[in-house]
């Protein structure tokens, strides 16, 4: 029983974390290049809708997943144009994306699904790692969605790219000291464009892993706050892929706990349980983490030739 419960909790933690992880990695890559991304929520919503809609019409969840990434990347292009080319206030641009993204997703949803604000369920969700239904309950609980594995892989890849390749060195230099990078012939704007678009792709995948794995369709509340939680995870994780990953697991655990049947019979109200992780986060921040330092040029447009 205990094993079952525990495995359920762990399984759910990973399940709920996966979309957050993609979202947080989206934040990490963008902000490491010096572009603050408050629009993760909007990008995820776009991905969530495109994933579910394409998954439904094509009958293939993988096609939906892929196109969700592409859609997220295209949508993020708006943010790149604003923050890199126009040197706009990145905070405002990100917030705008959070309005446009859900608006666009619901608008298109109503158009394609005869006025409904949710898509039809996709015929097949993304696969689970052990394939179909498992007999053993523990095995069932540990039968993660493939997105859980993909999210982990994405974290490893991003970590490797940032810290072990020349691209990572360049991205980080652009986020810290763009003028220095510029004098060494690194194209600051192109680097930032690349990172913001990658950010959109990751966020799009995050949204789709919600609507193609956790649930089976797009609904108006499929993405409700995950993008902001992801943003919090970026800061909590000190702008590193591995730190953000850990923070997302904590938030995923929170969500898992709030739906955990093992606690249904206790006297603790579920709402109090649900808020514990957020309180815990604050406590952890006060006790252990404290000041987290963003990349030095995060949020600052790079202007050269200006006296």
């Amino acid at each position, binding site marked *: 029983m205990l094993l079952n419960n525990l495995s359920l909790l762990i399984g759910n933690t990973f399940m709920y974390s996966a979309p957050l992880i993609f979202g947080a990695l989206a934040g990490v890559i963008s902000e490491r290049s010096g572009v603050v991304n408050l629009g993760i929520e909007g990008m995820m919503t776009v991905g969530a809708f495109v994933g579910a809609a394409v998954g439904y019409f094509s009958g293939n969840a993988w096609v939906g997943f892929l196109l969700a990434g592409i859609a997220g990347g295209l949508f993020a292009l708006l943010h790149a144009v604003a923050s890199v080319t126009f040197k706009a206030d990145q905070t405002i641009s990100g917030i705008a994306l959070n309005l446009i993204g859900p608006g666009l997703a619901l608008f298109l949803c109503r158009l394609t699904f005869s006025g409904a604000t949710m898509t039809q369920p996709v015929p097949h969700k993304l696969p689970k790692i052990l394939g179909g239904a498992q007999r053993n309950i523990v095995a069932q609980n540990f039968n993660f969605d493939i997105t859980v594995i993909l999210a982990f892989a994405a974290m490893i890849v991003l970590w490797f790219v940032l810290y*072990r*390749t*020349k*691209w990572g*060195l*360049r991205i*980080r*230099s652009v986020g*810290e*000291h763009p*003028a*220095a*990078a*510029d*004098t*060494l*012939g*690194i194209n600051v704007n192109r680097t930032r464009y690349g990172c913001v678009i990658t950010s959109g792709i990751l966020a799009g995948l995050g949204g789709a892993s919600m609507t193609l794995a956790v649930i089976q369709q797009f609904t108006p509340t499929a993405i409700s706050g995950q993008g902001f939680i992801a943003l919090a995870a970026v800061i909590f994780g000190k702008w590193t892929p591995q730190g953000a990953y850990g923070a997302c697991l904590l938030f995923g655990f929170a969500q898992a706990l709030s739906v955990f049947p093992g606690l249904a019979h206790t006297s603790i109200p579920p709402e109090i349980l649900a808020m514990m992780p957020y309180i815990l986060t604050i406590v952890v921040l006060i006790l252990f983490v404290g000041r987290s330092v963003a990349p*030095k040029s995060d949020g600052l447009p790079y202007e*050269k*030739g*200006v*006296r």
Partner: protein
Amino acid sequence: MEVSSKYAVQMHGITKTFGTFCALDHVDLDVKRGTIHSLLGENGAGKSTLMNVLYGLYQADEGEIYLNGEKVNIANPNVAIAHGIGMVHQHFMLVDNFTVTQNIILGNETTSHLGVLNMKQAHKNVQDLVQKYGLEVDPDAKVEDISVGMQQRVEILKALYRGADLLILDEPTAVLTPQETEDLIEIMHSLVADGKTIIIITHKLREIKESSDTCTIIRRGKYVDTVKVADEKEEDLASKMVGRAVKLVVEKTPAKPGKTVFAIDHLQVKDDRGLPAVRDLSLSVHAGEIVGIAGIDGNGQKELVEAITNLTKTESGTIQINGAEVQNTSPRNVVNHKISTIHEDRQKRGLVMDFTVAENSVLEKYRVAPYSKHGMLNRREIQKFAKGLIRDYDVRPEDCANHLARGLSGGNQQKIIIGREVENEPDLLIAMQPTRGLDVGAIEYVHKALIRERDRGRAILLISLELDEIMSISDTIDVLYKGRIVDSFKQGEVDEKTIGLLMAGGKQNGKDS
């Protein structure tokens, strides 16, 4: 001048405008290969702009560039680097939280395959370079942990790593100690002996005399002259730079010190990282006296000022103004005790750049009558005060009271700060690097203002990295080394060389103690 392969660089008729501002107006520069060529001009004369054009950071509107007699089009720094041009910027272009090696290889990384970094090889390459040119520096240290002198070596290594034959050094000695400056000049000579060509941007005449073969002077974006350094006197160079005869000495009468106004006794302060930065420091300043603190950057100047102004806590010791202890209170308490500070960093500490000049003029006294009443600002009084300040301190343009401080030139910004601090009628005026980044005219103004306030009986504490400045206007010279005042002299008792050695921690031969 004729285009020839004898010249490493020839820039002919270079013109560059920013908006309506003409930064360079048909400027010529011809640099012979294997020489050290200095580019002399005041702040804002266009020296850096010219070099940024050569390095491909800016595109010239008109003019041609020839390298070794070949016409080139330098569209971006990559092209410059490919042509063997390396540049060390005045403000170092280093990523603070990267290691020395990472900074050197950035943009030209050693990779095994698929872009994966090969740090082992990179480390070795850097080590080889360090040994070849004798530029001692730890390849694995983080840039934020090494001294400014070391950081400059990293910048030079960056250029050499990219195979630079032509090195551009932008104001390289601004942050160096006299000893480090000597070392740098030695390095420059050995690089030239190795076949490199060096262009050095500077406004320091002595360095030009010591280092360069040839000197090109530009003034307000226009070419003035190119001279053989050996043939010219410092005064002649100076007047060519400024466009009028310049007196290099500051005129002042002997000080008439009064009672002790300000005293620091056995002060200990730690720096940001918790390491001792000011150690057992004692000094005193009398009314009507300028005490200058000579020292190399990073020997506790910043922490000393932060302790006096209460931005940081002290460990032990006392800071007294007119007999009252002010350590570990609050910045406001210090202001209330009639200590005013002209901070070295105008833009960071001195001014709120997006406040108007009027708003900036009352930054310390907006709370007191007549500038406010019952918690509400009296904008008429503030305007009146600001206009008076603009008039009395000759701030330009004259109608700038409601302009943002950001729009003013550095010299005028400094005048606002000086005016504001002096108008506080302080008993002690602290001036930290008060002439940093100013042109000759503004520097003269600042020095005269300090001496004038001294003659009015104020105590003045001058902290500067420019030894010339300390030597020429201080009545008493205290030498700061590793957080201690290691020696103290009256003006005229001591020569620059002695002070320079003490600043470097030496006693006689300049070796580190």
